[in-house]
């Protein structure tokens, strides 16, 4: 019998009798076409053997080194307390809180997540999270179309993470290109018929963009302004809400999630109260129970697929409750000062590294543009530099393919690592 099924032979016999069939095969009498073979899978491994072999497979990955890759996923500190909470069985093994009376833990934690996102973005309403930053961006694109009742066409620039752009397109939204010059986007000529205008800040190249200008341009065109923001940056940068954005979305991974080869992360989405009906995904709301006690419940369900079916505002069903909980615990541990310090440490270290590289004669791709913790540096041979870095036990930056390397520096990088980076890159030439 299988690994996690409790029945004994006697149990099975008794149950088959109750059902009124003779054999397990009889339970599948209606299944046609039946599969008569045996699944061609490796024989069952015991837990110990499975985990031992998983360890061996994992050792084929290069980990345990300082990482200078970013571009949407950041090697940030994950406090030990985060995993201690998210591994609590009650959080980990529950599902969408359809029965609020026995799901207050998950519901309140979602409410807290929403609150944190609202505070960071300066917008009134956040949802319970979506799959990741890229799908949050794509859902926001669709949202602009629903709200404006326009065709889904959004204005973007090269400053928007190329991967996000691709997902928007996969979601059958048209992109209109805005000019991108000296590291920032020119919002002065937004076409009149777009449903949304997107601004990512810091953008793909780490540079702070003009969210206010984007918002104004969007509104002038009758479109919605969507800001795409790294949540850590919002500890130091003005909130998109305050700068006029209608929607803020982004990747919550920097808030306490492991890199985990790209997922699971969580996308966040926040908007103005007036647009809440077009916001996809779950929302937890505050209410009271029969006895007047404060409690929480999924609300505005009428927007969702399980109620509204073909007319739902999205097909999205699950959120990323557990990774959103990680973000919540992370934000609580850090607090406003801690988040700010994470940002400032990263900024200081990134500027130190950029300065050292410039001293060594390397040119930044956008030397005049204000950046936070990520920057593009031009190198004679990015591949060779990365190979040399790997040799020195360092995971180098992203090869932009055009003679520049996109380098991300987080609070985890030490001065020693930064100095080594410079030395290696210098000598790689």
């Amino acid at each position, binding site marked *: 019998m299988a690994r996690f099924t409790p029945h004994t032979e006697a149990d099975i016999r008794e149950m088959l009798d109750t059902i009124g069939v003779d054999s397990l095969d009889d339970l*599948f009498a209606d299944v046609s076409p039946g599969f008569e073979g045996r699944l061609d*899978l490796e024989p069952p491994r015991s837990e110990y053997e499975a985990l031992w072999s998983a360890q061996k497979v994992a050792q084929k990955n*290069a980990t345990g080194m300082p990482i200078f890759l970013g571009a949407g996923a950041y090697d940030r500190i994950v406090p030990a307390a985060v995993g201690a909470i998210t*591994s609590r*069985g009650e959080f980990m093994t529950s599902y969408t809180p359809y029965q609020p009376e026995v799901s207050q833990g998950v519901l309140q934690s979602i409410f807290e997540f929403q609150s944190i996102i609202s505070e960071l973005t300066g917008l009134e309403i956040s949802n319970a999270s979506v799959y990741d930053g890229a799908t949050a961006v794509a859902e926001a694109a669709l949202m602009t179309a629903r709200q404006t009742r326009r065709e889904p066409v959004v204005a973007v620039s090269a400053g928007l993470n190329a991967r996000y752009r691709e997902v928007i397109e996969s979601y059958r939204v048209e992109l209109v290109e805005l000019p991108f010059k000296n590291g920032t986007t020119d919002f002065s000529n937004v076409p009149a018929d777009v449903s949304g205008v997107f601004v990512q800040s810091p953008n793909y190249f780490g540079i702070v963009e003009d969210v206010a200008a984007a918002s104004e341009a969007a509104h002038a065109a009758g479109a919605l302004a969507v800001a795409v923001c790294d949540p850590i940056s919002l500890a130091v940068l003005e909130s998109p809400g305050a700068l006029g954005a209608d929607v803020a979305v982004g990747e919550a991974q920097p808030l306490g999630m492991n890199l985990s080869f*790209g997922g*699971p992360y969580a996308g966040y989405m926040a908007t103005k109260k007036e647009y*809440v009906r077009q916001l996809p995904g779950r929302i937890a709301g505050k209410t009271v129970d029969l006895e007047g006690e404060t409690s929480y419940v999924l609300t505005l369900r009428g927007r969702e697929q399980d109620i509204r079916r073909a007319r739902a505002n999205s097909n999205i069903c*699950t959120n990323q409750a557990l990774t959103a909980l990680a973000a919540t615990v992370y934000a609580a541990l850090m607090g406003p000062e801690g988040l700010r310090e994470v940002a400032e440490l990263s900024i*200081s270290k990134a500027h130190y590294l950029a300065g050292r590289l410039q001293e060594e004669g390397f040119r930044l791709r956008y030397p005049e543009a204000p950046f936070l913790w990520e920057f593009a540096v031009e190198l004679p041979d990015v591949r060779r530099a990365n190979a040399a870095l790997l040799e020195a036990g360092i995971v180098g930056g992203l090869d932009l393919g055009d003679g520049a390397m996109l380098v991300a520096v987080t609070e985890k990088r030490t001065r020693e690592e930064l100095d080594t980076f410079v030395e290696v890159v210098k000598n790689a030439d």
Partner: protein
Amino acid sequence: MLIKDRGRAGRRGYRLPEFDVERVGLEDVIPERHLRREKPDLPEVDEPAVIRHYTNLSRKNWGIDTNFYPLGSCTMKHNPRANEEAAKIPGFATLHPLQPEEQVQGALEVMHDLQGYLSEISGLPAVSLQPAAGAHGELTSILMVARYFEEVGDESRTTVLVPSTAHGTNPATATMAGFKAKEIGLDERGCVEVEELRAAVDETTAALMITNPNTLGVYEQNIEEISEILHDAGAFLYMDGANVNAIMGRMRPAEAGVDVMHFNLHKTFSTPHGGGGPGCGAIACSEALAPFRPDPVVEKAGDAYRLARPEKSIGRIMGFHGNFGVMVRAWNYIRMHGPELKDVTDMAVLNANYVRARIREKYRIPYDTLCKHEFTAQPPKGKRALDIAKGLIDRGFHPPTIYFPLVVKEAMLIEPTETEPKETLDAFVDALLELAEADPGELEEAPERAFTRRLDETRAARQLVARW
């Protein structure tokens, strides 16, 4: 009490490393107009408070770890702790998604293996692991269908058919992918009405989205005929794989003519539901649709694995490669089972039929036939599914899914899963039978032993408060 209310200005829950480079003044590197003026109102709490707050919050929640949780269509099976260990291995957990392929061969091996396992289970030759959830897998599949017809230049395909029993995600997906969703009714067995389908299928049909076994828990016995109808019309058969736990090793969708389907790794392959996610909605498809899979998939070339963009890919549907941590868990689960996945299915179906057979005495079973891993019941006359559900809570059981599928009034969709012992099923049935006799007035008071009483849900919507 909210975490914020446990705070005081100036408290800190985490100490960061000291500055080891010169501290850069923000105003020196960022134009002032970009800088934040008002501090976000976040909790200012210490680590002890964080741990206590969230530990106690968790204690106001049930999960599979604490209670029987027969939530129909959600496959709330036991989450083996080995899966968690596997996902935590630093070689997996700390890998950056953009590390070059030669640095991530182990991760790609996991993905390649898993693609192969899902292929074997479905009988379909091609797999994409990228979708983050079932609904996302549906969307991916239907986008692939759409792209296929674009590719072949067939502009007439504007409709996706959806049986009336379908999950709400199916019609919503169809709409989202740019199709009109059209509903198909049921026959007396609870299966897709074949003649209605036959009449509905025409040159505008892009696909039928079928769930098999369907959300009534009934196996779609005409699936081969159905696939023929669609294929004859040049349309595709998509299968919603929410219920794969009912068929592993007992049937392979490809052999029934399914062209594309999704899996819920968090249902069938035991990765935790996490209070609503993360999941993984991997898809499998035929050779015809394989070129349209999202970017990237994992290929093996010689001894090396690599990420590749399928030739006519619909493009990227996630920021990186999907929910890798979920894949690791499912991979580990399948490796602990191998061909015994068939036993998993057998026991899941046994458990559902056993509960069905026992509650039949007092509950109506609208389609009372052999069910698969779940079945739909109705409360005795005069009782509401909602009240039965809340009464179950007072007896220590998480309620089944209620008011779904929509085609059954007062529906209760019950899915015990294979990891529950007979004693638990018996206790659950006893509670249901007792509730069938309970005084309706009393039941309306339930739950009385939960973490709250019934909630004012109207107020939550009318006076929306979604943040502190």
